[in-house]
């Protein structure tokens, strides 16, 4: 039996000068109780597919042809009035950003009650009771009190629970979840995904899980549809798809994600180029211009899906052979193993604190936000040190302190043994920063060439010719054409802009580069290009990196050593390989467990969301060990005494009363030893 049957769906968006066919003839089914994953990069049409099913297209959009049958009823033929009856009752939707998808001026209760009363002829009291029931169902603590609260009083994770409660208010048959966890932290993501799976089983709903994250989909979808440029290019049961992708795009996409177990010596598989403009798609196979296996035929003829949508199917003339290892290694660079023995220490930070005064209330009682509370770390020359943690843990603030953008409230930073204080905090020729958002970090009114010239001009490096030569060299190093210099930042794609950002950071030949979430704003295929570039630049220029990231897979790919932060403190430091294999702090273990991996077997083997609860407030952190409120091992002492960072075997250190690995020495150290 099928619940949803989409056939040859084609959705178009009218623009000023042209028409974009965002969804171009796709077909698929969803059975009750089944989760179908729809995966693809931004702009591939996956969100439009969800909106088309709901018939919630933007004003310039329309379903041009095809059918959407829900329980044998064609939704495309319904009147708008009938369709309204379907929305919320038969099909419900959860959106990406829980911060904006709830009405900010309405109480949570009213929003859920509205959903109930739109479809059920019940009294206000009954609807209220139902609202409490569904809030309980999604794991909202004290649902009755929450009912009268407003969305802004809740955290992102809790808001997403409210969104799900709202969607489930009338027990729909089909739930469309569009990037439901993209805006959330990894431990919260695990909780929400787990909740969705549990609710699906309990209510035997069909779920369409739309995401760009192959890791999310590996653990939670039964079948997967891969979308590229408005088309479904491959369809397969989850396990088959990951074990044996047939379409070159799927294969490339899988190769592009750094994995927890990827050999660090391997380069990531990068997909060159960008997806086509859907207003004017290329003739023939749409992936052909970026495909390594494309033949002449691919450029003229459009490959159709090989089978009916329920089966294993792909749209390619040159499918990858069945039964083959997943990863094709493009190049194997002999990445020099971190030189054995004690390397020279480049940067040392000890006992860094950063507090921000919160605006007072007018009653004089000022409060402070303790963003960083006592972080000590050392970075050896030539290594990559990574700071990881959830948002709000203080990792970005630490990065700003290291580069000198902010002054620490207490603590010292030394570079090559020289203390960085006052005006000397900023060391343009030694330390530079790569920003997260490349479109914000480049002056929009300056041509790229001028932006690259600025550092040289400010530091009075060489004469005009020498500077121009340096710019030409750098722009070439980061893989951009010469004519890029004459253009403005907005004329580039996100990945290209990040290359420009890298070029500018490297202009003065710094020794240390701090990279704050360097790839988190980029699509997977572009992300791998930038990560590869960062690694090759490190090799060719002998750079030292401090990488700040929430993405442990990215960190795994880049880092030699890792520091895990929680609520302003380092809870674990050590060589990357050891921390990943033998985490000593319960938080590290939970964090690692929570990362969705693009490996269905590994995902399914995991236990339910490893870390419950949410990050406490940094204004008023828990006493003793800050992690104790979420720690499965917490005991009385954890609330009383704060555990110091202590060394354990293999160069690791951890701050825990009950570490998962045996401590090697009893004495406590304040600084982490160099790896």
């Amino acid at each position, binding site marked *: 039996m099928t619940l949803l049957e989409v056939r040859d769906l084609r959705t178009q968006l009218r623009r000023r000068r042209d028409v974009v066919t965002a969804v171009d003839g796709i077909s698929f089914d969803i059975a009750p109780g089944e989760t179908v994953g729809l995966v693809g990069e931004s702009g591939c049409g996956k969100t439009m597919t969800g909106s088309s099913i*709901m018939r*919630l297209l933007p004003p310039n959009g329309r379903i041009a042809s095809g059918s959407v049958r829900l329980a044998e009823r064609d939704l495309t033929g319904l009147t708008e*009035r009938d369709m*309204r*009856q*379907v*929305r*919320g*009752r038969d099909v*419900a*939707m959860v*959106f990406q*950003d829980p911060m*904006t*998808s*709830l*009405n*900010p*001026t*309405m109480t949570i209760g009213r929003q859920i009650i*509205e*959903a109930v009363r*739109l*479809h059920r002829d019940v009294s206000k009291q009954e609807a209220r009771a139902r609202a409490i029931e569904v809030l309980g169902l999604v794991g909202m603590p004290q649902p009755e009190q929450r009912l009268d609260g*407003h969305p*802004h009083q809740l955290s992102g994770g809790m808001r997403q629970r409210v*969104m799900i409660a*709202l*969607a489930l208010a009338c027990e729909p048959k089909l739930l469309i979840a569009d990037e439901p966890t993209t805006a959330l932290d990894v431990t919260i993501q695990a909780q929400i995904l787990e909740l969705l799976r549990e609710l699906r089983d309990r209510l035997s709903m069909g779920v369409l899980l739309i995401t760009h994250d192959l890791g999310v989909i590996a653990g939670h979808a039964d079948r997967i549809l891969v979308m590229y440029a408005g088309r479904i290019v491959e369809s397969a049961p989850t396990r088959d798809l990951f074990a044996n992708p047939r379409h070159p795009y799927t294969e490339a996409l899988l190769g592009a994600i750094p994995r927890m177990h990827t050999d660090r010596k391997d380069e990531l598989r990068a997909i060159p180029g960008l997806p086509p403009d859907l207003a004017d798609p290329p003739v023939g196979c749409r992936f052909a211009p970026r495909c390594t296996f494309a033949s002449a035929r691919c450029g003229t003829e459009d490959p159709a899906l090989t089978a009916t949508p329920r089966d294993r199917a792909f749209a390619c003339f040159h499918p990858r052979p069945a039964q083959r290892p997943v990863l094709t290694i493009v190049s194997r660079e002999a990445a020099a193993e971190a030189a054995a023995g004690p390397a020279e220490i480049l940067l040392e930070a000890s006992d860094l604190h950063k507090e921000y005064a*919160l*605006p*007072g*209330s*007018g009653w004089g009682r000022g*409060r402070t936000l303790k963003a960083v509370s006592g972080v000590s770390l050392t970075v050896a020359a030539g290594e990559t040190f990574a700071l990881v943690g959830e948002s709000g843990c203080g990792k970005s603030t630490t990065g700003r302190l290291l580069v000198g953008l902010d002054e620490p409230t207490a603590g010292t930073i030394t570079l090559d043994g020289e203390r960085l204080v006052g005006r000397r905090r900023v060391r343009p020729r030694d330390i530079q920063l790569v920003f997260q958002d490349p479109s914000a970090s480049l002056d929009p009114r300056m041509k790229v060439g001028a932006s690259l010239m600025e550092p040289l001009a400010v530091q009075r490096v060489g004469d005009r010719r020498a500077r121009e030569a340096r710019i030409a060299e750098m722009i070439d190093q980061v893989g951009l054409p010469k004519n890029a210099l004459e253009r403005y930042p907005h004329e580039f794609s996100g990945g290209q802009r990040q290359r420009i950002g890298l070029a500018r950071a490297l202009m003065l030949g710094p020794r240390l580069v701090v990279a704050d979430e360097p790839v988190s704003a980029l699509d997977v295929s572009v992300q791998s290009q930038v990560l590869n570039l960062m690694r090759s630049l490190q090799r060719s220029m002998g750079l030292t990196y401090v990488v700040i990231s929430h993405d442990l897979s990215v960190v795994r790919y880049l880092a030699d050593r890792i520091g895990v932060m929680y609520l302003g403190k380092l809870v674990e430091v050590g060589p990357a390989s050891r921390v990943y294999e033998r985490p000593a702090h319960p938080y590290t273990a939970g964090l690692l467990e929570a990362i969705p991996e693009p490996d269905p077997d590994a995902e399914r083997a995991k236990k339910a969301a490893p870390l419950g609860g949410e990050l406490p407030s940094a204004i008023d952190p828990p006493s003793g060990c800050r992690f104790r409120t979420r720690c499965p091992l917490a005991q009385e002492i954890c609330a009383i005494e704060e555990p110091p960072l202590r060394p354990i075997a293999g160069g690791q250190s951890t701050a825990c009363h009950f570490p998962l690995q045996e401590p090697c020495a009893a004495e406590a150290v304040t600084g982490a030893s160099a790896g």
Partner: protein
Amino acid sequence: MIRFIAGRLLVTLPVLLGVTLVAFLIIHLIPGNPAQAMLFGANPTPAQIHDLEVRLGLDQPLYVQYLRYMGGLLHGDLGTSFVTQRPVINEIVDRAPDTFVLSGAAMLVAIVVGIPLGIVGGARPGSVWDRIGRVVSVSGVAIPYFWLGLVFLLIFAVRLKVLPAIGTQGFSSLILPALALGWGYAAILTRLVRSRLIEEYHDDYIKTARAKGAGPARVLLIHALRNAIIPTVTMLGLQIGNILTGAAAIEVIFGRPGLGSFLVNAIAAKNIPVVQGAVLFIGIVYLLINLAVDVTVGVIDPRTRKRVAL
């Protein structure tokens, strides 16, 4: 909520003090000797000037004068009008109600015309009503309101003779001045409501509401409008000061003895205590109204409450 209001009051107080300082300083900013400026046209003898200086305390240091001025304020003493020799406060209290009525009526015109036009324009951009709204908003911003007042007079009082031209007798005498004064604000409101609604419609929570199965009317009235109206309320509050002051020209045209025409006459006659009093009075009324607006917005939008009083 009470803390929020208290916090709001607390930030208003220093501004209030600032306004009194501005009103106080008017007399001292006039080039030359303030006493001479006040006696302009009278060709005063030095003795007369000195006499006035002593009487007004202008021979004292500035801060002493300010303290005395503030002391007077606390007792409701705004000085004495040079023209009528009556206390300024009495003159203001006599005239204020008429200006309040006119401003209130103008505000009503703005709301009744502007908000509905903004709503239909924002909900259905490009529709006939949206075009009508655009005509209102363009005309209201471009046509000077005092000319509009004259045109209304010409059409309705002089030619059609359906409404009285001048005077303050009864409701009918209020219609033309209120329309002339309110039209420009109707235009601003139309624009604002329209653009805010269009913005709100792009917000995610509207998608959520539609995904629940809410119909267009519900999406508009229950969801979008509520959020779009918040900046509108704030803006209305900020415009009240301009309406109060703008009433001056309308009062002159329609022969209404309000605060505005009082102020204009005082400026022309260099009747400085009256100017000071009127500036202070309008400033205080404006501050209080905005305080009320902030509290109202705090009620509608719970997010704003947190921002001020943590």
